[in-house]
């Protein structure tokens, strides 16, 4: 197992390196894109351009520039924004991370619990009205766009019924967990539910499908022939085996969301997370921030992948040896 984790970590580092090179080349070495012109502003005179180039190291060979970039990003951590001169990239990201993590982790707990419950219930009650009802509920959750749902929730909780039913709902924004756990949860409650609504539906469908498939497996027939109760067959055998693909999917979704895919939710609920930071930097073409955000996102996706593989091995003894 330790060997397995070690190999997996080495592979992850390699992937991150490749991504960083690729992103760097896309943003800094694409012909026709001159970051210096971007920084110096419109109609800057050649002297200023030269000065900017030198200042940012843009006149040096590409491998050196890549090295410098990485050094600033990871070793000295003093990469500065092109747009807001003097604003350091790393602290900005570090500030945004807890927001995104709080949002995604909370939502993930809700959607996994809901998805597993709904999916298992639907599979177990196949042939009754409960099954199509659960799946309809799931489809509704999947098909409603997150920004729309978010806006409607805001409308109801922040203005329409704010004086009545939802008077306890705090204004939009984020309160750190360490500052006040109660306020943290209260501020994130509706963002969590909104984000979870989408994924709970997807996961319920997947869990249902996996369980139904597992119920057709030979080992379920064996379990039945053993005289086990239907409940035990469903949970200890069918659901347990269905968890393997579900967990791997979950890891990837989680990684992508933490990496910035929760953007829409963050923007709608005014949460200053990584998604919002990426969104802003892209609008300004703020290359160092983009670079930082992409590396951060890649890091989480790769990390999630690695965690999924380890989890997979924990859940499925067949891959442990491989």
């Amino acid at each position, binding site marked *: 197992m330790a*060997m397995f984790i*070690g*190999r997996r970590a*080495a*592979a992850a580092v390699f992937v991150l390196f490749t991504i960083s090179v690729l992103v760097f080349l896309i943003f800094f070495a694409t012909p026709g894109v001159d970051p210096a012109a971007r920084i110096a502003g419109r109609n800057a005179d050649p002297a200023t351009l030269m000065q900017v180039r030198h200042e940012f190291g843009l006149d040096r060979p590409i491998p050196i520039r890549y090295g410098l970039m990485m050094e600033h990003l990871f070793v000295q951590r003093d990469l500065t924004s092109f747009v807001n001169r003097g604003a350091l990239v790393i602290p900005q990201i570090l500030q945004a991370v807890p927001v995104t993590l709080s949002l995604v982790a909370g939502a993930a707990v809700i959607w996994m619990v809901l998805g597993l419950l709904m999916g298992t219930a639907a599979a177990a009650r196949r042939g009754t009205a409960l099954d199509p009802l659960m799946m309809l509920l799931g489809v509704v959750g999947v098909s409603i766009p997150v920004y729309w749902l978010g806006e409607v929730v805001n409308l109801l909780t922040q203005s329409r019924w704010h004086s009545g039913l939802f008077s306890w709902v705090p204004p939009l924004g984020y309160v750190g967990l360490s500052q006040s756990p109660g306020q943290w949860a209260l501020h994130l409650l509706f963002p969590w539910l909104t984000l979870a609504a989408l994924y709970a539906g997807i996961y319920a469908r997947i869990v249902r499908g996996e369980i139904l498939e597992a119920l057709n497996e030979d080992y379920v027939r064996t379990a039945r022939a053993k005289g086990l109760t239907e409940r035990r067959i469903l949970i200890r055998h069918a659901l347990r085996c269905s968890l393997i693909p579900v967990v791997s999917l979950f890891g990837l979704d989680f990684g992508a969301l933490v990496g910035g895919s929760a953007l829409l939710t963050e923007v709608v609920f005014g949460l200053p997370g990584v998604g919002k930071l990426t969104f802003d930097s892209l609008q300004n073409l703020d290359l160092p921030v983009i670079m930082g955000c992409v590396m951060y996102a890649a890091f989480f996706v790769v990390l999630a992948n690695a965690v999924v593989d380890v989890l997979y091995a924990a859940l499925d003894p067949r891959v442990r040896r*491989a």
Partner: protein
Amino acid sequence: MRRPERADSDPGEVLLEARDLTKHFPVRGHSLVGGRQVLRAVEGLSLAVRAGETLGVVGESGCGKSTLGRCLVRLTDVTSGTVSFHGRDITRLSRRQLRPVRRDLQLVFQDPYASLNPRRRVGDILSEPMQIHGYGDRRAIARHVQELLEVVGLNASHVDRFPHEFSGGQRQRVGIARALAMNPKVIVADEPVSALDVSIQAQVLNLFLDLQDEFALTYVFIAHDLGVVRHVSSRIVVMYLGEVVETAVTDPLYDRPGHPYTEALLQSAPDVEDEEVAPRERILLTGDVPNPVDKPSGCPFRTRCPYAQELCAREHPPLREVAPGRHVACHFPLVTPTGDVAQHALSAGGSGSAR
């Protein structure tokens, strides 16, 4: 007896020959770190297939018999050694160079459904190889397709059917018709009847024998069923862990197995008891076939062999002629140079006493 044992009376020319054939598969290893392991599917195997004979290849799953079949028709690349057809080395031919060889060298698969494209009509499946090899104009091809269907016992009006509209036995007939399409000289059949119902097996086996008579075909017939192999083959190759452990003409081999593994296989095969065949006592092998990734030292069979001695762990027994026409890879073969049952085989309750 039955059909003339052509290989006996008139040894035809060697059509297909493997020399020192080796095929290794890398075992799903880890790219950066970790030792690489190889699965030795076929190792240092030599055999010759003579014109007009049926060479039966038997062995249990994992013995490399299917891999051997695929190497013989160059469906897979070989690791080392050579395969030659009509005396010409075809081991390293390119796809294009192989094309004319493929006409003469065909493979019939175990699962006819998996090997027939489910979206194509039988007529298209059969005419495809003819189009590729330039058989003739469309009319000639259509006529030949009809002939082929009739030859394999299908109704010529079924050219427009899809594979799923046939039963398993009929699909295997289609598979055979496809192999016959270009008038091949050699057909390598890999477990062609093992997926079929018992009553259908006999029909397909008869078809194989009829076609052989009609078209002077040469077969390499790979199967795990000892009764089936005995029925069709004039000569038998017994494989264990990627190696040939015994090869001989069919009847002597079944009557007096020369290798302990052959003997064990024959004793394990269940047979119907009736007036002719009495129930018998038998020695069972213990344990399982070792992992081909981690083969035992010396003789590969020694871990399960009832006759194994200390020498067997030390030295790998070469395949040698222990009696006329009989090659056995064993330090203590169960037949004497005259072809009789060896003394030690009798004492251990060998097959000689079982009959």
